[in-house]
């Protein structure tokens, strides 16, 4: 499963960087930093979610989605909007 997840994540990252290069967009250092944090938190959420289900800890699995999953989405959405607004205004 993690092999497939790694392929997907790699493809998405390559795709994003290609997209930024094609459009000549750049990200600020804090946007990069927030991106890494958001992606790390998202991967942490996914791993703990599935692993908690495997451990027969259903409540823990659900709470990982809430406690770490939603913040990761918020962080990534914030990066997206920060960069989009900045690029648009420039």
């Amino acid at each position, binding site marked *: *499963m993690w092999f*497939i997840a790694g392929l997907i994540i790699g493809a998405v990252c390559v795709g994003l960087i290609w997209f930024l290069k094609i459009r000549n967009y750049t990200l600020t250092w804090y946007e990069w930093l927030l991106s890494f944090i958001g992606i790390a938190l998202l991967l*942490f959420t996914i*791993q*703990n*979610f*599935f*692993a*908690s*289900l*495997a*451990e*027969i*800890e*259903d*409540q*823990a*699995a*659900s*709470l*990982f*989605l809430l406690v770490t*999953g*939603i913040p990761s*989405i*918020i962080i990534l*959405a914030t990066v997206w*909007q920060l960069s989009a*607004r900045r690029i648009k*205004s420039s």
Partner: protein
Amino acid sequence: MENFHSTLSRRDFMKALGLSGAGIGMASATSSVFHDLDEVMASPNAGFQRPWWVKEREFENPTCEVNWDIIKPMDSSKSLHGYITTGPKGWGTDPASSFNQVFGTEKIVEIHETTNKSIIDGVQHNEPGWNLRDRALDRASTASYVKTVFTLDENKNEYSPEFFGVSKWQGTPEENSRMLRAAARFLGASQVQYGVLNEKTKNLIFNRFYTGQPIVFENTEKAYYTSNKFVLPSNKELYFISLAIQMHKEGFRHGRSSIRNSSNHSRYRLWSQIQGCMQVFLEAIGYQGIGYPMPYWGVMPSAADAILSGHAEIARNKNVCISPEYGTVCGYFTLLTDLPLEPSRPVDAGIFRFCHTCRKCADACPVQCISHGAEPSWEVPPPTTNPNMEPVYSMPGKKVFHTDSSLCMTQFNGFGIGCGNCMGTCVFNTNNAAIVHEFVKGTVSTTGLLNGFLWQADKFFGYGLTPDDEKENWWNYSFPTYGVDSTVSVSNGGY
């Protein structure tokens, strides 16, 4: 920067949040049915889940063709194993044996002589795969017949160094420790640590066995026992081998139940076999293995040995110890030996420090026998059930949180299935799949500042005892052999 004011409107933010939440909700709704991608493709039943490329066939129709009209009940004594252990000239020489009819007595005797010579030559010439310790492991692997004894019967020492005409195994203490760990894990132990019996740790040897016979030291080469005493040699250095046998965590989360009791008893069943195997291994390399005279009781406290040799730290319940690898759900047993070993040190993984803050086991105890105190103490209070009695069942000399063992025994012995709520609910009784547990353990070991938060988080996330209405699910789960993860601390083999 010129513009700090965000141009993201509240409407857009809430829209993004809602879309994200919907996405997560869809994922969780989907995932509650399919736990992972494998399960998407496999049967939803918790049975023997096989890879997708294994196809099932009709009953009595394997991939090799079978003619059921020809197959009849067979005389098993006519198989090549029939009458194999009998005969005037030993193994396979019984004329009634098919093996004997195939080869003839003369050839079989020749095979025996060749085999024995190969084995003896291998040991005498230290050949790889045939040397003394290889043969010792082979011998130990067949030792399940050995009943639980203090020391092995001296008459059963075939395959000892004397039998092969070689000196006993010689290695450095480090080499011996490594060798013994490899053998012990192969024979069924989860992990092994070592200690030496010095002027301090000798005080942990009981002066009487649990049935009352004295345990004494005498100037003797080998340990021995009579009906009246157990004797340890005083004129040589002895080491203790602390063997861990992990138990079924999910079973212990059942608290007071027969499945938890089964999980607990399993370690004694395994130990009764492992001890015999270890004693034979040690004897076969020329050393003593001094064990439990009976499966449940030894000559020194195994939990103390586990803590001193670095398996675990003591818990808030002073009758329990907690391993960084196996948590609370692990049993420990002690063998004594004169094989020189490299002692291992006690460890600090922040566990006992965590117990200063956490009271999860104390809260879970049905008779409240575990201290809720903030600090451990040197005192050993009398039992609640009989305040006039001296607590002779507890040796002072350690600063721990007090557990009223007499009250605990009302649960341990009172229901016929024991208790174990404290062990099952413990924060450290978690499995190994979710990486959050490594983050927690690493944090607990590094600093105690977050202990209170982590204790509460453990409860918030729902870790702990299994509710009664979920206990029957155990029969539908697919757990590893013996219900434990035997790959813990494994480095080789790609398991």
